[in-house]
């Protein structure tokens, strides 16, 4: 249950940063850790993540299931499952979101930073008309009457091709097809014209044709100048949409690269493995399996046990190392 904000175990006092000179960075995640202490082991869903999202860019976060993408995404909205412990900072417009009160966080959510949830089928209230839910972020802003919101929803539905808009807005989510539901979630995310949208797996379980329509919807969002963080399994979708790619593994960022360079020559052995597992590159799977879920990972490089080039140095965890231009990688090969 996402109800109670969890007990923050802060590393130190709240840090308000002077962001002079780095005005183009809209969200900065610093040493963020979200851990779940279970009876057997602590699941380190997010473990020391550093990440800077630039204004107006589209950032794709890729990584296999359980690597902590969703936990990271919801953390940026200040939403945490109960029972977790949080440390680090998430800075948005000079404020650490983790230091804000629930009240202050609410004024960020939906209006400044919007969320497009994973799993559209369960992400909408089954007993509320879809149009109302899509327009809900607006209802919190002054001057938005019911009629005005409804008009805006119809515009959004037309724009994201949830057709026919009037009929669709009156319908309940269960009568929607998967692609249409996902597009109305995009409409919902954009409805209050936020600065940042975080989209979680927008193409999961969607066929090729619908995927194209979702990509179009996201291009539309990007063209409005909205900063996009797209969490995805789908490398093709990332290639189509992103400016930069972040690779997550077992709760940590292994690589941050420019999109072109990433698909041309990935830095991390894990990234290379991911690209090799694409169908056009021969569907070669990465041997072994990720260890975050059972808490088996303890120290050193997280990818060590599966890495073809692992050496002695890898017993120590590498830091994020700048390898080329602004691209960074967590691997000793680039030291």
């Amino acid at each position, binding site marked *: 249950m996402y109800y109670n904000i969890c007990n923050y175990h802060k590393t130190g006092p709240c840090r308000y940063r002077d962001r002079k000179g780095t005005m183009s960075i809209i969200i900065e995640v610093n040493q963020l850790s979200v851990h779940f202490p279970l009876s057997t082991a602590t699941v380190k869903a997010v473990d020391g993540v550093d990440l800077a999202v630039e204004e107006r860019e589209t950032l794709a976060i890729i990584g296999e299931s359980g690597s902590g993408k969703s936990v990271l995404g919801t953390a940026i909205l200040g939403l945490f499952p109960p029972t977790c412990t949080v440390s680090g900072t998430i800075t948005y417009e000079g404020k650490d979101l983790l230091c804000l009160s629930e009240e202050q966080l*609410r004024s960020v959510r*939906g209006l400044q930073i919007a969320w497009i949830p994973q799993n559209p089928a369960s992400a909408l*209230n089954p007993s509320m008309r879809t149009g109302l839910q899509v327009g809900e972020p607006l209802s919190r802003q002054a001057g938005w009457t019911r009629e005005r919101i409804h008009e805006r929803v119809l515009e959004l539905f037309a724009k994201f091709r949830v057709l026919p808009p009037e009929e669709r807005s009156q319908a309940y989510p269960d009568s929607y097809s998967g692609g249409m539901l996902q597009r109305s979630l995009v409409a919902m995310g954009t409805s209050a014209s936020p600065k940042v949208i975080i989209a979680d797996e927008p193409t999961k379980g969607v066929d090729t044709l619908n995927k194209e329509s979702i990509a179009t919807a996201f291009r539309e969002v990007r063209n409005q100048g909205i900063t996009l963080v797209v969490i995805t399994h789908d490398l093709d979708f990332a290639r189509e949409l992103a400016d930069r790619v972040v690779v997550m593994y077992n709760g940590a960022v292994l690589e941050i690269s420019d999109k072109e360079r990433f698909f041309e020559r990935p830095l991390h052995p894990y990234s290379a493995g991911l690209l090799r597992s694409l169908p056009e590159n021969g569907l070669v799977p990465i041997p072994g399996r990720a260890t975050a879920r059972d808490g088996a990972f303890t120290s050193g490089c997280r990818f060590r046990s599966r890495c073809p080039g692992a050496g002695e140095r890898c017993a120590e965890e590498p830091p994020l190392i700048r390898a080329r231009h602004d691209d960074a990688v967590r691997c000793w090969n680039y030291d």
Partner: protein
Amino acid sequence: MNALVVNRVLQIIPVLIGISVITFILIALAPGDPAEISLRAILDTDNPSPQAISLMRAEMGLDQPYHIRYFIWLSRVLQGDLGYSYISHKSTIHEILYALPTTFYLATLAMAISIIVGIPLGIAAAVRQNGLIDHVCRLFSVVGNATPEFFLAILLLLFFSIQLKILPVAGSGGIQYFILPSLVLAVGLIAITSRLMRTSMLDVLEQNYILTARSKGLDRGTIITRHAIKNALLPVLTYMGTQFGWLFGGAVVVESIFALPGIGRLTVDAVNTRDIMVLQGCMITFAIIFVVVNLAVDMSYIWLNPAIRYDEV
């Protein structure tokens, strides 16, 4: 969907036949000679004469074998004839139709009280999980479930009728005669309803769409009223619907204590005087109410739940 409804309606027939057979067997197995027991009530004597008893046995058809008696009764029922009371000599249908509104009123009032008290209690308990209301609610549900109706009835009578003298002890008339009985009936249901509503709310609050609502920056109150309650209500109301028939069962005890002339009391009287035809009529009435209530609940569930509706087409 139509096939589903028809199927569901047809299932009623074997259920009713089964219930009528069981009732018949139970009455046949009950100790004592029904003719003799009836006569004691009719003649107001402890020792009716043997001639009177054998005449009565003939009138009640007790000289026939069991299976013949059942089929005679069944064929009459199918013609819409439930027989008559050996005591009052009125037709069974008349007796039942006279008693039903009282019980119906009692059960509806109890249901209304349970909804009005139980649902908000459950919501409050879920919203402040492990808070004061939650603990009070938990205690209440344990005590409410464990207290027998007759005991609660006596406590309430002692307090409101004997001590405070603000409500009548027993009898029938205006709504004041229904307050204590419906309260007694409602307590058990409130206990269950509030727990159920709490569980259902907690379940809903864990759903993905609640996280979505939070991500939109809605405040907790809006999330609970706009997104949680309606979804949490559906299974609870469905359950409560099925309990409507159960309230009729509870009416047997409560009506006897408070001397309300409903079908529960009619049944008890019929048992005591072995007024067989009335007793069978009451049993069939209970069965029909149960079955119809359940059917209505199922139908409303299908109707309210689009997922089921589409699947079954």
